[in-house]
């Protein structure tokens, strides 16, 4: 079975995700050597209905590190690129500590 893709949202245009959580998650993701996608701010992309969202939404099983799952789901939908309900897991960096997010993203493969 192929590993789920990983998408990280940097939530750059507002301070709603704690800075330490973002830095810790991004640092450990890049240190893992695993492939992943990172975007500046999913909200901003959704507002512009950025066509790049299509590639991000359309990739099969995906783990997304961002904020509340309900918000992320309907942001993609509102931009015209719905994500599937199956196989997409959203990890909430607004609420969960970095450790939890990283183990959710990397599972057992963390280095």
């Amino acid at each position: 079975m192929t590993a789920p893709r990983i998408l990280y949202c940097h939530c750059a245009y507002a301070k709603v995700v704690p800075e330490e959580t973002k830095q810790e998650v991004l640092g450990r993701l890049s240190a893992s050597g695993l492939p992943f996608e990172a975007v500046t701010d999913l909200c901003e992309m959704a507002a512009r209905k950025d066509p790049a969202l299509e590639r991000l939404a359309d990739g099969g099983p995906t783990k997304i590190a961002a904020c509340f799952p309900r918000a992320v789901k309907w942001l993609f939908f509102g931009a015209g690129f719905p994500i599937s309900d199956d196989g997409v897991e959203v990890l909430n960096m607004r609420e969960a500590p970095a450790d939890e997010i990283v183990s959710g993203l990397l599972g057992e493969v963390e280095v």
Partner: protein
Amino acid sequence: MSAHRLDGTRIRVVLHDGDADTSQRLETLTALLEDGHSVTCAAAPPDPSDDVVLARFDESTATIRARVEQKIGRVDPEPSPFWKPWFPVIDYDRCTNCMQCLTFCLFDVYGVKEEKIDVQNESNCKTDCPACSRVCPEAAIMFPKYKKGPINGDVVRPEDVQSEAMKVDISTLLGGDLYAALRTRSDEARKRFSTERDESKALLERKRCLKKLKKQLDIPDEVLMTLPSAGDIEERARRAREKAKRRGERSQSVKDKKPTTEDDWGI
């Protein structure tokens, strides 16, 4: 410095191998993300393509930025003003298509697409104003960058839908017709501007009049002070009244009939 295309298009940078240590990797990634670019971290270099910039983790951030700028061709000498992405996001699992949000919004953020409420003018939305989410009877409107739930996307609990803070009935707000109230206050403010030398006094008066609205809906002061003109508000009030009248007439005979045209929504 950030390097966006003048049309606002962002570039995607594909970062691959290279012997950078963890802190250099993080620095490069953070710099590119804060410049506004998407980044793909790949295990191996992909085939070159037109819409991406390839870079290695062990290259300096300055080198990668220079390559990005070269790819973009032109760099906006005056980057467009900062816009916090603030706009309503609708949870269609909850939305009942009642159109209260569309009727309420004075800035034409909402429209109708294929008979459904639709967010159409995101950038018209007033930053940090979550007012329309509070008039939604189903708690279906989110602002992902709002501080509190459920407006920020957190799970909606039964008490959120019931709570007074969440559920503001437009028709009873400010003791009756919201738009008439806004219009009156707007006219008052205008008169004061023309008759009083002390403009700050008039501004204070307008602020005071709208305090209730601000408190109930968490509307920032700046938004209250930039409400559309009295004429615009009057026009919306007229449409809202017509809509309510038509609804009343219709409700007797075709209670559950859904509107089929934009006109039916009174917009």
